[in-house]
């Protein structure tokens, strides 16, 4: 289906105007149902405005979807929270009153849960709150961060993500901003340099390792990275993946054993015999010569073409 253009201000339809496109069922009824489910009326949001929001969300995530997929997609959105957030972004007071009631204290609790300290939590929450209200202006119009909420997840979860991202960004900035005096006083000048990439003496080992890692599924790589790189607990990883921690434990053991087998097989494929392959596996690569390898330039994930950057 060709990319359509957005219908703005159209009252009774929420479908993209594509030549030959066929509305699914009664578009007017669908729009009305979605609007009623959202409760946008009590937030001061009109049906027109809400339809525009729905179109925006569909264009962002499923630009090429068929009509029935779009309708299904809209039904899976958090419609009520989406209406609330967009009504707030539009500056409707009834929406802000509701938003304050529900989320004012939660925002501070979220910040406190992340920073573990009250004063910085309050500062972080106030800063986010200012962004949500829309202290920034673009083309003379107040821009609220709530206009980036798309209703895929809960509004509270979205607020939590936004606060977390802001916290991580601040933390990284503070790490870079270290004065010269502080560096000398704190002995930073004696700190170890950032670790260089580890390059094995034998390229075949590197190739075998890359091949073995490449064969893993995304979830397996995620589990390995979370455990061995991020030092996350089995419980945390289990919650992320959606399985019990004992399952994660068994999976990790199986993955490591499987990786070893794959690497050994890869080394044998590359001309080593079994003994050589095992010896190569056991060698401690920390003492090998390090070199910034260009093989570190892997292809980035191409999954998110439609949305660049994060909110």
């Amino acid at each position, binding site marked *: 289906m060709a990319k359509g253009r957005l219908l703005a201000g159209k009252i009774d339809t929420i479908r993209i105007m594509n030549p030959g496109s066929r509305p699914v069922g009664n578009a007017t009824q669908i729009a009305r149902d979605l609007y009623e489910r959202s409760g946008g009326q009590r937030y001061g949001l009109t049906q027109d405005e809400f339809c525009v929001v729905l179109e925006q969300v569909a264009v962002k995530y499923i630009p090429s979807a068929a009509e029935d997929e779009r309708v299904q997609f809209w039904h899976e959105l958090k419609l009520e929270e989406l209406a609330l957030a967009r009504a707030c972004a539009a500056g409707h007071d009834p929406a802000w009153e509701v938003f304050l009631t529900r989320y004012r204290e939660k925002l501070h609790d979220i910040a406190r849960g992340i920073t573990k300290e009250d004063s910085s939590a309050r500062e972080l929450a106030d800063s986010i709150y200012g962004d949500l209200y829309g202290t920034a202006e673009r083309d003379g119009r107040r821009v609220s961060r709530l206009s980036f909420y798309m209703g895929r997840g809960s509004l509270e979860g979205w607020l939590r993500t936004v606060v977390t991202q802001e916290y991580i960004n601040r933390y990284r900035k503070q790490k870079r901003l270290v004065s010269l005096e502080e560096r000398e006083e704190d002995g930073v000048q004696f700190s170890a340099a950032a670790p260089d990439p580890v390059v094995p003496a034998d390229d075949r080992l590197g190739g075998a390792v890359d091949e073995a890692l490449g064969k893993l599924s995304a979830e397996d790589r995620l589990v390995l990275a979370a455990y061995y790189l991020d030092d996350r607990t089995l419980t945390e990883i289990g919650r992320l993946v959606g399985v019990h921690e004992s399952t994660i434990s068994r999976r990790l053991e199986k993955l490591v054993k499987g990786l070893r087998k794959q690497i050994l097989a890869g080394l044998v494929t590359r001309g080593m015999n079994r003994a050589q392959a095992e010896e190569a596996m056991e060698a401690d*690569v920390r003492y090998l010569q390090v070199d910034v390898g260009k093989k570190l330039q892997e292809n980035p994930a191409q999954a998110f073409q439609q949305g660049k950057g994060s909110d």
Partner: protein
Amino acid sequence: MPELSNLLKDRLSRAGRPEVHPDADLLTAYAEKALPATERTQVMEHLSWCSQCRDVVFLTMEPAAEEAAVIAVVPARRRRWFLTPQFGMLAAVCAMAVGIGLVVRVQTANQNASEKSRVQEAKAAQPGVSAGVLGQEPGAGDSRAKDSEIEIRDSKAAGAATSGSAQTASAGKKPERAVSNMPQVASIAPARSDYVNLQLFATASDASFQNTNGSGDLPSAPAPAPAANTLTQAKILTREQSITLADLPGDAGKQNQNVLTLYQPRAGRQSASFADKLVDLGRHVHAKRLGPAISQDAARSFAMATPLPANNALDAADALAAKPSAKSESPGLKESSAFSANGLRGRSNDQDMGSPQWKVDHGKLLKFEDGRGYVEMAGTAGLEFSVVTSSGAEVWAGGSHAALIYSNDAGATWEKITLGDSASGTVVSIVMNGSSVTVKTSANQTWSSQDDGKSWQVK
């Protein structure tokens, strides 16, 4: 867990150089498992390479997961088990056992002191223990306040008296009148505390108490909360009538019976003693609340011997009522909300099982129902709630635009309350204190009513 080689770790961390990150919506939806399979895989692919986004997801997910664990719908089977009457009774029995243990310890600690005073009184009146001792006790210089009393007799109080063999021999003899009129008590083992008896009387239907002299009806106690099966409907013995314990056969004096004497506070006097607080419980008496509320200090203040002669309990209660020092020995009770009438009235959203009965979530007013969990109150849709307070069947809930509703039948029916024409803001606090209600709004207004919400004044 097996270790990964440094090379593996290094390659795992450097394998991807993602330049495009998923937005906050996608990360949130991923953490909440709200993405379809295709998108979920895409996000997972990115997370497997991007440590920054992994950090965001983990930090975002941790408290959310804990909250979800709290409010998530519990599997029906586990919830039903937790909410069955059998579990409630088991919890009540366990709490009563804890209470008995604490009271026994308290009685043991105070036994010597009370025994000494009794012996002295006995010597002053007549040799050995006789009913006259009991009769003289109220007038024997006892500094107890002149309050009416509720006496509960354990018809099976065969607890061995600790003051002597003669007393012991007669300890098992009990007034038949008491036995015939207190079937519930008859089933209680002698070693158990009268504290336990108190609870059973509080919950048994048609509980009644008989004075020993068989006189007519006694003046009933002023009831803090009317109910069919509460202590407040117990017949109260006046001080003079308590003297009639002397009429008991043999030497079944006070110390030979399991008697827990409670004092009905005078009107206007604050309930300060342990006994007073027990009386004030009314229909809110639950063993589970009483058990944990007894602090070690309180337990020591009125420790009873094992087994439990009645007079020890009487002395213990007397000590608390009459002696300021006894009160100071049990600060825990004073502050214990379980024994404070104000605390009971002020307690809100507390169920016997520990879960709040009422709560507000996402602007909705929710009530906890057995077997169903939290359900939205019918008829309250369209209102944006922010706070709810309850005490027993009375429920106050407030929300945006100074909206306030009230129910006195646990949410079966609701009445809309109008604070005043100038009321504005969102209701942020509702405090109940008897018939007095105080409501605060986000517009810095404080509205108070002294007549259960019929009229309001703004401060």
